[in-house]
């Protein structure tokens, strides 16, 4: 297991923000990462934009398009990570799609990501059945490939948990990413099934935006992941977003203390 990721869950409930790299620019992304660490983020998910993000709702889809239109590429994201890694200690995990990795060359991608200072990767379109194509390569380079479980996973949870690395990403709701008023899934049941099979942290994501939701979710999990709500702030404030994102992260982290 990657040590930095382990550390992220060693100090109470973890707050895990997500941002899309290059929205509105990689310079601003770099500042946001620095500010989020200061504001108490325990682990940061960095989205490498993809043209057709099939697991995303409208907010993150739009951020992907904005970033790609601005000329962001995988290599430019690696350069940005390399720069920011010199000043932050927070664990960094990529979240992108299988083709971004496969097309770059999985071995070359893992080597460059690891060298830049990344700690893990989440590929929402790579389920348990296809994981062996990617996970061993990332493992070799000291990166954890994070497994997801969904409200529909049921009897699959045991099998997924046994081979999970880093932490388990518990998808709170059906559907794609995006803010939700209500989360009805029994998160406690999901996380206890995971933990019955492996001693590994569980973080809940999809649909969470308010401090109240975060603290409620954290009752049955080790961490809370927030994407769309933060990406929305980036979309609204553009290059002024670092301060606004920091304020939001502080508020969310406080709710988890």
């Amino acid at each position, binding site marked *: 297991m990657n040590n930095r990721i382990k550390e992220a869950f060693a100090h109470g409930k973890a707050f895990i923000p997500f941002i899309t790299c290059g929205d509105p620019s990689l310079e601003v992304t770099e500042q946001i990462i620095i500010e989020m660490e200061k504001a108490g983020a325990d682990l940061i998910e960095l989205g490498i934009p993809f043209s057709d993000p099939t697991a995303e709702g409208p907010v993150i889809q739009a951020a992907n398009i904005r970033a790609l239109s601005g000329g962001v590429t995988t290599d430019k994201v690696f350069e940005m990570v390399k720069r920011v890694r010199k000043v932050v200690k927070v664990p960094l995990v990529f979240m992108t799609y299988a083709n*971004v990795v496969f097309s770059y060359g999985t071995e070359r991608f893992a080597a460059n990501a690891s060298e830049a200072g990344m700690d893990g990767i989440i590929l929402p379109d790579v389920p348990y059945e296809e994981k062996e194509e990617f996970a061993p390569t990332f493992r070799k380079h000291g990166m954890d490939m994070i497994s997801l479980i969904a409200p529909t996973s049921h009897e699959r949870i045991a099998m997924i948990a046994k081979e999970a690395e880093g932490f388990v990403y518990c998808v709170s709701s059906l559907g794609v990413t995006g803010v939700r008023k209500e989360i009805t899934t029994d998160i406690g049941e999901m996380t206890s099934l995971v933990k019955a099979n492996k001693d590994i942290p569980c973080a809940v994501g999809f649909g969470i935006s308010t401090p109240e939701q975060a603290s409620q979710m954290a009752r049955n999990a080790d961490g809370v992941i927030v994407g769309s709500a933060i990406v929305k702030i980036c979309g609204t404030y553009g290059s002024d977003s670092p301060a606004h994102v920091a304020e939001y992260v502080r508020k969310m982290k406080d709710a988890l203390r």
Partner: protein
Amino acid sequence: MSKGRFGVHGGQYIPETLMNAIIELEEAYNHYKDDPEFNRELTDLLNNYAGRPSRLYYASHMTEKLGGAKIYLKREDLNHTGAHKINNVIGQILLAKKMGKTRVIAETGAGQHGVATATVAALMGMECEIYMGEEDTKRQALNVYRMRLLGAKVHAVTTGTATLKDAVSEAMREWTNRIEDTHYVLGSVMGPHPFPTIVRDFQAVISKEIKEQILKAEGRLPDAVIACVGGGSNAIGAFYNFIEDKDVRLIGCEAAGRGIDTADTAATISTGRLGIFHGMKSYFCQDEYGQIAPVYSISAGLDYPGVGPEHAYLYDTGRAEYVAITDDEAVDAFEFLSRTEGIIPAIESAHAVAYAMKLAPTMDKDKIIVVNVSGRGDKDCAAIARYRGEDIHE
């Protein structure tokens, strides 16, 4: 490697949320595909509702004009709803019904698959929602109306290039949102396993019939079978029962758009490379970083940046050949078949006709070509008129 592979292609690259639904579908399909009662119902619907078997027509005028191989046309355009799409839709909705689903969703490009899905949903009393790129809802306004008339709800997809690939993405997103009562009727031999296999099996009736019909008419197998390829369902249907007959050339016609040396193309095998998208590993039009390319073709049904995994495999092994046909060539063929045989083909199918026009003159008169006319061209008339500079409205 995971299930559902054709060589390196295929697989199940989908969100965890969908995995149990896909597994359930595979189990149900494996159970029903050999179930006599299921097959009796399927055959009954194909024959008495869709109008199968479709005719294999000897195109004597076309043959004479081109002056080479004898040309037969497989008339999938004569099926109910005007295309081969109904073969797969009847199979999948019958299966969905057996699985206890009450709602179907589907993507559509030209609108043929959407119309077929809306039709069979109406027949079988299923709720139906269709996802169609906004650009395509404009190109194929008549089909949008047909779907609504049939009781389906049509969603215009505005994301990305607002064409077929975006409609597939949106239908997949909707499926993750509502799985319990919903079956996703994927319209081509693409997506995650088991879809490429299920759709192929339901379309294989095309080559099964061609084989019987040509043996009856000519006493021998054809020298070449030609079909257009977007995702590739009519082509795999026309090829499948000939794969073991190594002397039969199998030729898939991709949409070159304005040319394979331009950015305005949808010819995946000619211009794409190996990738992972929409649940499958196969060839895709993409940039050096794996971003999916905004493809183009005059044909909304071939306007897709990928190709089904079994086609990718048939290409790798050399069993099938894939050629690229431009908009210009397809439109010429659209007009040629209309005038010589009185058959207006879908602009998709016109890509296959166009290649037959190139190939037939190079072959001896005792050779035989079968062209799969996958659909009828009524839906395309306004667009072709516009292409020729005539502004007509439906």
